[in-house]
């Protein structure tokens, strides 16, 4: 009954299963799943990431050690360079005190011998004498300083008394010119027959009067009182007094350095590093630049100074000169200091001082030539006739110094055009092995009143150029919008640029080790309009990349 049906169904089932298996096998053998046949570079993916987002102001610029930014009263910015034109210490001026040794002998005169012979043994004979030791100071330029007095930091007065008589004696040494704690020096000592006595007097902190009671200078007078006691009738012999000042070092010297003149003395040059980055091919006009010279003096000596030349140097221009003849005052007095104090006197060169004359430039013209360095020369004179001196005239303390420091203030105010800036930085992309190509986008919001055309040159360690991103073929970084009256930026200007770096370049970027940045700078209206940089001016630098990875 049902048996035939079972046979039919089994046959159908087997056919069905076999058919399905055949179809399945057929479907799977078409090679659609053979991933060995997959071709490379299947599809494009692209990733966009920000790279740089910085707000850069002038404060972010790494300035040299002698340079800083200064915010002026109107909130404008100035770059200030400081430098020392010259610095002279007392030790540079007077190296040491000089002393001339002296010898003085006393022997009996013929008259004294007659009287000596008549006197009984045990009788005494007294003689008084004095001796002068020179103590002088000489300046390093060869001129002498006449000393009235000095306080010594160290030193030694070395005396030696030699007795060749056959009689004993007593010697009293008195030096009222040398005082310690206000007390003059005195010493009495026995001097035996045929003996020599050395004596060392420490002059540390001694005040020494060198005037011989107001009659001269540079001299120390020593008084000897010698009492000889007759021991026999032999009258031959002598007493010799020797003296010298050794290793004297002063704390302070009083006297007169006289009027000494030093002509055309070259002072130290001042480097202006910011100008060294400018490969100038254009023009710059700096408004209200100034150079302030601060003269500090803790000597008790007034100076007169007049600049004979102030030379600037720039490789593109060569040497150029400030009109020093126009500096007012032409003969500048540097006042003397009171003891323990420092006198400061200033001279400011500015827009009007000096004015230009012929090829000699005003300060504005001088700085607009962007000097890499500034080298002044000056005549100097001590104790100029126009200065009334105190009674002690001059003093030199061992701590005294004098110097001329310069403060060059360059307000970022003026016009600039066609200036090329160039700098080199270390830089590495890291590994870009998995990048096929990328597009670099820059978005600059410029709040400075200058425009910049940039070129970035990527090089290897040996400065071989790998790739150049040339802003000349792309929009420059436009300057901010400037108020014509004040020169101040009133609105930032956005500039967007894109640089496509293709697959042929990317593999080489692994070698990049340095970036050479070249920028051409111009203020608004192509350098025809005055602009001013203020403290709040800044530039937003945004860079992003869209990179296509290798797939």
């Amino acid at each position, binding site marked *: 009954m049902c048996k035939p049906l079972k046979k039919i169904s089994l046959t159908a089932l087997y056919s069905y299963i076999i058919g399905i298996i055949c179809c399945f096998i057929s479907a799977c053998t078409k090679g659609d799943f053979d991933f060995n046949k997959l071709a490379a570079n299947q599809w494009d993916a692209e990733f*966009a990431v920000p790279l740089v987002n910085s707000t850069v102001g002038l404060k972010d610029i790494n300035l040299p050690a002698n340079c800083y930014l200064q915010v002026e009263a109107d909130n404008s910015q100035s770059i200030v360079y400081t430098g020392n034109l010259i610095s002279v210490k007392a030790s540079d001026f007077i190296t040491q005190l000089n002393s001339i040794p002296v010898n003085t002998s006393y022997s009996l005169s013929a008259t004294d011998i007659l009287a000596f012979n008549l006197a009984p043994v045990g009788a005494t004979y007294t003689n008084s004498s004095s001796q002068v030791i020179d103590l002088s100071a000489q300046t390093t330029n060869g001129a002498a300083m006449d000393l009235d007095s000095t306080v010594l930091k160290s030193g030694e007065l070395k005396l030696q008394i030699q007795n060749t008589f056959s009689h004993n004696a007593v010697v009293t040494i008195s030096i009222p010119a040398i005082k310690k704690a206000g007390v003059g020096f005195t010493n009495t000592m026995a001097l035996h027959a045929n003996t020599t006595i050395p004596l060392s007097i420490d002059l540390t902190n001694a005040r020494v009067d060198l005037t011989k009671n107001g009659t001269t200078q540079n001299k120390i007078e020593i008084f000897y009182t010698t009492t000889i006691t007759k021991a026999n009738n032999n009258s031959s012999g002598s007493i010799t007094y020797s003296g010298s000042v050794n290793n004297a070092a002063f704390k302070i010297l009083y006297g007169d350095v006289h009027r000494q003149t030093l002509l055309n003395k070259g002072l130290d040059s001042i480097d202006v590093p910011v100008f060294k980055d400018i490969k100038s091919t254009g023009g710059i006009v700096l408004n209200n630049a100034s150079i302030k010279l601060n003269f500090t003096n803790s000597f008790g000596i007034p100076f007169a100074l007049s600049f004979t030349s102030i030379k600037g140097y720039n490789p593109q221009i060569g040497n150029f000169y400030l009109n020093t003849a126009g500096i007012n005052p032409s003969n500048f007095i540097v006042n003397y200091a009171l003891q323990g104090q420092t006198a400061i006197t200033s001279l400011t060169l500015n827009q009007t001082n000096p004015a230009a004359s012929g090829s000699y430039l005003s300060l504005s013209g001088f700085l607009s030539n962007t000097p890499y360095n500034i080298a002044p020369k000056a005549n100097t004179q001590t104790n100029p006739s126009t200065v009334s001196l105190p009674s002690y005239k001059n003093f030199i303390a061992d701590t005294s110094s004098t110097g001329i420091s310069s403060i060059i203030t360059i307000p970022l105010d003026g016009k600039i055009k066609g200036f090329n800036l160039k700098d080199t930085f270390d830089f590495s992309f890291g590994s870009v092995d998995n990048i096929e190509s990328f597009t670099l986008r820059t978005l600059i919001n410029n709040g400075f009143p200058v425009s910049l055309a940039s070129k970035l040159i990527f090089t290897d360690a040996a400065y071989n150029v790998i790739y150049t991103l040339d802003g000349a073929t792309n929009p420059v970084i436009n300057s901010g919008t400037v108020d014509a009256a004040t020169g101040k930026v009133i609105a930032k200007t956005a500039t967007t640029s894109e640089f496509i770096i293709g697959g042929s370049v990317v593999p080489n970027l692994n070698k990049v080790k340095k970036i050479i940045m070249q920028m051409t700078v111009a203020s608004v209206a192509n350098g025809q309009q005055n602009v001013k940089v203020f403290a709040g001016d800044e530039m937003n630098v945004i860079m992003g990349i869209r990179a296509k990875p290798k797939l």
Partner: protein
Amino acid sequence: MLLSFSADSQESLTLYNMNTIPQSMQENPGTMPLFKGHLSLPVLSSNYFSFSNSGFAYADLVKKRADDSLVFTVDNMLSKLSASNYFNVSVRTDILSFGFRSRKNYFSFSIIGKNDNYINYPKDFMTLLLKGNAAFIGSTANFNVMHESTAYIEYALGFVHQTNNARLSYGGKVKFLSGIANMQTNRAEFSLFTDDKTYAINATSNISINAASLDTGDISKIFKPEQNLLGSNQGLGFDVGFKYRVTKRLSVSASALDIASTIQWNERVVNYNTKPGGNTFNFNGFDIKTIFNNNGSLQKSIDSLSDSAHHLLDLIKTRKAYTTAIPVKLYGSIVYQLTRNINAGVVVYAKQTERDWQMSTAFSVNTRLGKTVSTSLSYSFNSYSTNNVGVGIALNPGKLQLYAVSDNILPLFDATHAKNSNIRFGMNFTFGRIRNPSLIAGSNEKEAFLDRFNDIQSRKYKLYRAKERKRRQAEKD
């Protein structure tokens, strides 16, 4: 306590109206089976495998060129994606199942091992992954990448009752669920905004991941029969269904599966969550001053950036039990008996998801040749594909039943265009099979007569076989 929907596969639509197969009771527990008893054996009786990918087919991603080489067609693949796409893989096997009929009732018991894996991959996620964030310049890529894998054992006690007039059958199942392991991304929300001018990136993450019984990488330690067969990860669920013969030829049926089915995961639970409010990562670009302070090298800056980006995935670890819900599935069907052996029907299926219901509809023609062979041919469409041809066949050479059912056999002919398919196959023992479902309704006297006649013939044949065996034995003796 955490609660979320669990992964779950699409059920078999073709099987729904193949009542000769015991596993059809898994689709509608209210249908009286066409046999008086069944027994399913471990591994042999029912093996179910399904995959479905709503987004794209293999051919959308890989194209064969004229030179026989293959090329990825990513743009084409992405164009096929919806805003939210799903990929499911499910495996099920009957560990044990049996049932028997008693008068107008059918009692059944089954133990089924289930493993469902699900991942939701939003189009934005795939676009970001394959095309990069340049595709989202000036806009925000938002995506919530959901994933869940669940393995559990279902113990089901079923009951079907048929009314006296045989027009209505109804029934249900009570299911005890024993969880083996689970891992789910309860929440994996990411957003990425790329500024159109600066390419500045703003990313956020808000992540919540739960896992149970997975704190070991050794799969043999995850599945421990002595623990998982009746482990501490437990839950309950219910199935209900009915079938009603409206007229002699027309019947309707419906079922609701996994009603209030949940599993509470208690064993070796670990939760990973971002801090409240989620994590954020903003990158506007490196400070150029920093770069030059590092001697112009980007590497240190990139390393620093990488450290910051990792914070996006900073997760706080806790150990709190959580509950997953098995999605509710609804079936509805209308079947029209065309001839004695052929009927046609439509099955509508809906599965609850986190946001909505996934719908499928199948049209099928079912045939039955006596008690021995039944077949089904179906066409269905769903959110994955609108072109699915399914086949089912059950062969009963005696008490043994061999069967195979699939809702989509087209992948057998062209796997490259397949977006979904499933297959269930195995062998059961069925006893007391009933030849034609219309007889159960009792409305066709001719059919009833034929069935009784067949039963008589069958008994006569058995008696004849018994006599023959005795006669041969006697001759041997």
